[in-house]
Each structure stands twice: as structure tokens, then as C-alpha cells.
């Protein structure tokens, strides 16, 4: 029973209302405990945090770090790997490669080195769940989990067509359990299957998904309803239709409205906030304002931004037609995959250039979202790693949010037309440390329904990041002084001291067992693998932790 005391730190914990007050943090067995009532209690170890900023570990609620698409991206970009600084082997850690898609072990080390201790992969087809868990097994230190792709699942669409809400709910519950996944994800709902069938992408919420006889609107509403009925800790996680296309803000607005008060998370919303005509790049414009108004006014909606960062990266998506679109636009190499009955995939290298009008607008649109959103508890910092940029660029984004002068300086250096087309130049808001703590840990933990993450109150997991204050925010957030995971010092000044195995979060909502034989019957008629080989068992999660449904103890 070891007792650790972190003394004299300036604690920034918005959940407890602490904004830099000097407090001690007490830790026993990996959990934060209240300060002992008896002053004579002596800790086994004291960490002096005088003058340092103490926060909960960062939580990345939307990134791509495991599964076949990530692995293909690694293999697809040897030219990037060749030049990226490798992670060298030490007596405690393994070697690895970096670049925009780091290898598994390097992913764990780099996230922790950045002070992030939890990360969720946002797009795993259930068929690839086993592979994803195996990669997460090899992603050390951080706690993790993944969202299960369902927005183009054939069985899902069949139940929606027949109007069988109960059966859909049972299937969603069964599928989450079979994949050992954490949340329901819809990627370009309906559009991926429409494109896979050769009919082109859908263009709006009411386009029919041929053969399945449903519309994107129905898929969104019914999956949001199922997630809500199952009381999942995280609501439906939506990658809206028409990602990246000029004029797509209307689809995004329609999606928000279609939810009619149901809880949902709209991801990488930056990529969905564009005005302009489809065939006219010159008319490309920001439509953050009307969308952020809706989010500001509707408590049921949360978003993460999907900020674009200038530089070379790799786009990877379950949105097959988007991958094709990016390949057409960039002329770069392209990988496309069809996961039978379930999903699609597209991978294309992409370089965001500050002198490109479109790219600079995307950069500005992301920042507009951060600066116009009124409630920091409902907006989360993300780059949709590695789509908008890698997670290693988070400190740079924090810098842009906290320092308006720095932001203006960068704005001056990008394509000049951005000054005219974006309101960014007029936004003087500066994020406080406390607000940064919200959008990087407290809010994502809350939105994910992880009660033990994102804060430093009693009962929280002792995932703690200690920063040396520095007006150069990039520097401050790039290299935390100390990172603790489950109460253990893992990183000191960028050096990994230990690399334990993190948790894998999953859910196991109840379903009607009697329906399984029907699912099996359908499955065996349509899938290329045996039903018995589909579900992932607990052995694949060396430190699995089942998160209970909302409202249960």
C-alpha cells in the first residue's frame, strides 16, 4: 500500500474548480485519495511540484492508432518513415518508427511523453476488432479503447429498413460486446456502402442508400436512439456525410437538426463546416458561425475539432469515397479497402500547405471553432490524428489558442485571402490554462463517460501530468516535467522510466440472447468467416476494463 504525495503544485483541475491553487495531491495504489485527515500520516514518497502546473493526464477522444487501416498506412509510407527520427531501444523500452503513423510501441511512448494518458481509436470495423486489440496490446502505458463502425453495417441497415428498433438495439449491444468496443461510430452513414456499390457517394441526409432502402438520416437517428436506449457511456459518434466538400455545412446542420435533442458527438467538425460551391474552389468559405450557434444552443451536442496543422501527414478514414476524393485532388497514392458487410477505408498521404488557400482556410476554420464555441465542456481538442496532423502537434495548437499574438503572427504568414474569408482576425479570445485543461482532458473524459479520468478528485485514476510553466506554450506542453500513470512515475523530462500495460476500456451492454441464433444465421449466409471466430474474447485484452452503462453503479 504505497502512499505518494505530490506537494505544492499549482493544480489546474476544472472539475474541482481548481485554477492554479497550490494543493497537495495524495495517491494510494494508483488512485487519487482525499488528503489524510490525520496530519501524522507520512507518505512513502514525496514529489515536489513547487512552481509546477499539475493537471490530469490528457485524454484523446478521437485518433487513429490501431487496426488494419493504421497498419496499412505504416506500410504505405516508407518514404516518410525513412526520414522520421526513430525511437531507439533502451533497457526499458522498445524501438519504433515515427512519422505521421508511429509504430505501436512508439505510439504509447510518444503519447505519454506528451502528457496524454488515454486515447481512443475512432474507427474499427468489427471484423478488424481482433487485430485492433492485438495492436492496442502492443501500445504500452496509455489506457485505450475504440469505437465500432456501424453506420454502413448491412445488418444495421436491414433492421432500420424493417423498422425493428428493438432488434437493432440488441444487435448494437451484441456487436459492441463481440468487438469489445467502447462506442458506436457512424462514418458517412450510408454513403460508404452507396459508393462501394458503384452508385457514387450520397449528397445529403435524404438520399436513398440503394439496395438497403434507408437514408443517412434514418441511420443517424436510429443509431443515436439505440446508443441512448442502451445508456452507453459515450453517445453516437458521428463523422457526418460529405466530409471535406465545399458547401457541406448544410449537411452538418441537417445532421444536428435530425438528432432532435438526442445526444451525439460530431467529430472533426472542422472538416464539415465549409461554405462554397462544389465545383468552385474559389468560393470556399467558413460556415462555422451558423453551426457553432446550434452547438452553443444545444446541450445534447458535443464536438471535437479535427484541427489542421501545416505539414505532411497521412489521411486515413473509414470513409471510402473520401479517400478516393483526396486521391483525385492530390494525385497521391491511394489505398482503398472494402470490409465486407461492414465498412470501407481510404488512405492517402496529404501535405497541408500554408500558402494553399484551401488548406489555410481549413486551419482557420478549426481555430474559429475553438474560439467561437461558448462552452469548453462541449468542444475537444483533436487533429483527428493523423488526418489533420499528428498528435505531436497538440502543443502547437494550445499555443495558438492561448496566445492571440502568436495566432495573428501565423495568420499573417498564411494565404492572404484567409484574412477576408475567415473571421479569425477579429477573434481576440485567449484560452486560459483552465480552459485548456477542459478541452484536453476534463471535457473528453466527461463526453466519453469516463468518471475516473480528466480530473484529480478522490477516486480518479492517478494519471497526472506535471508541466513547467513557460510562456512558450509549445515548449511547455511538448515536454512535461513528469508524467504519472496509475500513480507511477513514467516520464521524467521526456525520458520513459517504465512502460506498463494500460487498460483497454470496453462496454458490454445487455441484449436478448435469443436473437443471437438469428444473427448467426444471417452472419453465416453473408460473411466469409465462421461466426465462432468473430467475437473477440477477453484474452485479447490483457487489462480490460468494462465500463458500466450510464445510471448503473
Amino acid at each position, binding site marked *: 500500500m504505497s502512499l505518494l504525495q505530490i506537494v505544492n503544485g499549482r493544480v489546474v483541475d476544472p472539475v474541482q474548480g481548481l485554477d492554479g491553487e497550490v494543493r497537495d495531491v495524495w495517491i494510494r495504489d494508483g488512485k487519487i485519495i482525499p488528503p489524510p485527515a490525520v496530519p501524522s500520516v507520512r507518505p512513502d514518497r514525496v514529489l515536489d511540484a513547487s512552481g509546477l502546473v499539475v493537471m490530469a493526464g490528457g485524454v484523446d477522444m478521437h485518433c487513429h492508432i490501431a487496426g488494419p487501416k493504421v497498419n496499412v498506412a505504416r506500410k*504505405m*509510407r*516508407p*518514404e*516518410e518513415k*525513412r526520414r522520421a527520427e526513430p525511437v531507439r531501444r533502451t533497457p526499458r523500452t522498445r524501438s519504433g518508427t515515427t512519422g505521421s503513423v508511429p509504430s505501436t510501441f512508439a505510439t504509447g511512448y510518444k503519447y505519454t511523453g506528451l502528457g496524454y494518458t488515454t486515447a481512443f481509436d475512432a474507427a474499427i470495423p468489427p471484423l478488424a476488432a481482433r487485430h485492433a486489440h492485438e495492436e492496442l496490446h502492443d501500445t504500452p502505458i496509455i489506457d485505450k479503447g475504440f469505437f465500432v463502425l456501424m453506420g454502413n453495417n448491412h445488418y444495421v441497415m436491414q433492421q432500420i429498413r424493417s423498422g425493428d428498433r428493438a432488434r437493432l438495439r440488441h444487435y448494437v449491444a451484441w456487436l459492441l460486446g463481440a468487438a469489445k468496443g467502447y462506442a458506436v461510430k457512424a462514418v458517412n452513414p450510408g454513403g460508404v456502402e452507396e459508393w462501394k456499390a458503384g452508385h457514387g457517394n450520397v449528397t445529403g441526409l435524404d438520399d436513398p442508400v440503394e439496395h438497403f432502402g434507408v437514408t443517412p438520416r434514418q441511420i443517424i437517428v436510429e443509431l443515436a436512439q439505440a446508443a441512448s436506449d442502451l445508456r452507453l457511456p459515450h453517445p453516437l459518434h458521428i463523422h457526418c456525410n460529405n466530409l471535406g466538400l465545399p458547401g457541406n455545412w448544410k449537411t452538418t446542420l441537417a445532421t444536428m437538426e435530425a438528432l432532435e435533442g438526442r445526444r451525439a458527438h460530431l467529430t472533426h467538425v472542422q472538416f464539415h463546416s465549409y461554405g462554397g460551391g462544389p465545383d468552385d474552389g474559389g468560393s470556399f468559405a467558413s460556415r462555422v458561425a451558423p453551426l457553432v450557434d446550434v452547438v452553443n444552443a444545444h446541450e445534447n451536442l458535443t464536438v471535437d475539432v479535427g484541427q489542421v496543422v501545416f505539414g505532411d501527414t497521412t489521411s486515413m478514414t473509414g470513409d471510402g469515397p473520401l479517400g478516393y476524393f483526396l486521391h483525385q485532388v492530390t494525385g*497521391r497514392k491511394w489505398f482503398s479497402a472494402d470490409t465486407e458487410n461492414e465498412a470501407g477505408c481510404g488512405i492517402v498521404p496529404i501535405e497541408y500547405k500554408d500558402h494553399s488557400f484551401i488548406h489555410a482556410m481549413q486551419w482557420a476554420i478549426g481555430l474559429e471553432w475553438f474560439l467561437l464555441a461558448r462552452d469548453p465542456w462541449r468542444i475537444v481538442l483533436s487533429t483527428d490524428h493523423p488526418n489533420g496532423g499528428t498528435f505531436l502537434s497538440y502543443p502547437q495548437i494550445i499555443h495558438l489558442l492561448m496566445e492571440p499574438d502568436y495566432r495573428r503572427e501565423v495568420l499573417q504568414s498564411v494565404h492572404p485571402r484567409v484574412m477576408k474569408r475567415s473571421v479569425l482576425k477579429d477573434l481576440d479570445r485567449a484560452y486560459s490554462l483552465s480552459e485548456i485543461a477542459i478541452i484536453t482532458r476534463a471535457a473528453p473524459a466527461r463526453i466519453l463517460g469516463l468518471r475516473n479520468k480528466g480530473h484529480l478528485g478522490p477516486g480518479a485514476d492517478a494519471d497526472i501530468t506535471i508541466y513547467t510553466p513557460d510562456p512558450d506554450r509549445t515548449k511547455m506542453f511538448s515536454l512535461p516535467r513528469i508524467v504519472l500513470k496509475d500513480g507511477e512515475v513514467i516520464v521524467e523530462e521526456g525520458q520513459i522510466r517504465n512502460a506498463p500495460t494500460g487498460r483497454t476500456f470496453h462496454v458490454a451492454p445487455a441484449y436478448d440472447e435469443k436473437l443471437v441464433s438469428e444473427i448467426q444465421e444471417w452472419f453465416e449466409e453473408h460473411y466469409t468467416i465462421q461466426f465462432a471466430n468473430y467475437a473477440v474474447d477477453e484474452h485479447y485484452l490483457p487489462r480490460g476494463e468494462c465500463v458500466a452503462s450510464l445510471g448503473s453503479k
Partner: protein
Amino acid sequence: MSILLRLRNASPIPIEAECLSPDRLEGLAVKEIERLEVDHGNERARVADFFEVGLRDGNEAAVIEGDCSRVKHIGAGMTRGLLVVDGNAGMHAGAEMSGGRLEVRGNAGDWTGAEMRAGRIHIRGDAGHLLGGAYRGSRTGMRGGVILVEGSARNEVGCSMRRGLIAVRGQVGDFPGVSMHAGNILVGGLPGVRAGAGMRRGSLIFFGETPGDSQRQVELLPTFSYDCTYRPPFVSLYLKKLQSWKLSLPVPAGEGRYRRYSGDLVESGKGEILVWQA
């Protein structure tokens, strides 16, 4: 005086020796050169473990003697000076070099001059695969400079090349100029199959046809279309330049005519293949 490295312990396990370039060797004492690190398989070793280092008369910056076909990365990344390999050179010789001259008196391995930017490589013997090519995944191979080969070269000569000149006196293997964006490849002999596949721009010039011999004709992909037969003036300028570098192709400069084909039509079709006919 020039630096002399004589290979005394040839190893079947490859030695990776990026340090063997004029940039790194210049100004070093013999003892310092001996201590330079190389990779030997998965182990670290020193130059002295394999080479005898000394000085000798001559105006060459550095001479490496012996069969170095298992020594990789000789002259890779070099930016200046002269480096001579008196023997064979292993893979990646002169890869990514951006200046200076590399001379290989024997044969050179695969990826010689891969992704080079400037400078000149002269190979007296044969070259391997992907001469001046792009590394896997890269968008561009050779970006500038000159590669001269007196013998033959194997597959994918100038793969994804963007600029520069490659001249091979003998034959080349399959896919010469595959996916090239620009630049010039001159071949004294005949190519293997699928010359210029996926090329966008640039010129591939073949001199090796024998009139009347059906076995010795250039065979092109159906996605190259015949334009005309003419005498492009730039070819004789190149041939003269090659002579000044002491590489002569088996053709009298300024004579004969060329069949011109444009392609690859599955790409832009703006590249050309010229086939010399006496």
C-alpha cells in the same frame, strides 16, 4: 596525397558504411578514419575492423580498394570531392548525393545514385537494379546530376526520375524510365520489356537496334504511339557531352534518324521514346 582504404576482411555480412564519403573523410588523420563507425549486420564496428587505412600519392580525395560488393552506402549523401572505388561497390553507392564525383571501377550494386540530386557517378562495369531510382514509396527518384555506366544496368533504371541524365553503354533490364517525370535516359543497347511504363515526361533514347535483325528491335508497350521519324538536334549535343566525360555510345554523333513515340498514354502522354536507326 590521397586517402587509401584497402579492404582486407571481406565479410559475407553486409557492412553499412555511410562514413565512406569525401565529406566525412576530409581532413581526418588515419587514426580517426580507422575509428569511424560502420554497421556490420546488427552490430556496430569500426572502419579498421575491415579496412587498412593509409595515404598514397595521387590527387584523388579518397580511394577504396578491393571487392566492396558487400559494403553499402559508399559515397551516399556526398556533397563534394572525388571518391574512387577501385573494385566493386555495394548497394546504395552515391545514393542521395548532391555533389562531387564518385567513380566505381568495377560493378555497382542496386540503388546506385538512388534519389541523387547533383554530382556525377561513373561506373566502369555494370550497375544493378534501380539505378538513379526512387526508394520504395518515394515520389521522385534522381533529381539531378549524371550517372554514366560503361557496362549494362538491370531493371527499373531511372525509376520516377525527375531530372538529370543517365547513360548506359550496354543493355538495360525491364522497366527503364518507369514512372519517370522528366530527365533523359540514353541506352547504347536494348531495353528489356515495358520501357517507359507510366512515364509522364522526359526522354528515353535507345541506340541498340540492329536493322534487319528481328531479335534486336526495341519492343514498346501499346500505350506508346508512333509520331514521326526525324533527327532531334539535342541528342547529338548529349552525345558530344558524353564523349567529354569519356563515355562513348556505339553511335556516331549527328548521324542517323530516330523514330519518335509518345507516351505513356495511360499517363499524360507527354514523354517520348526515341529509337535510333542507322
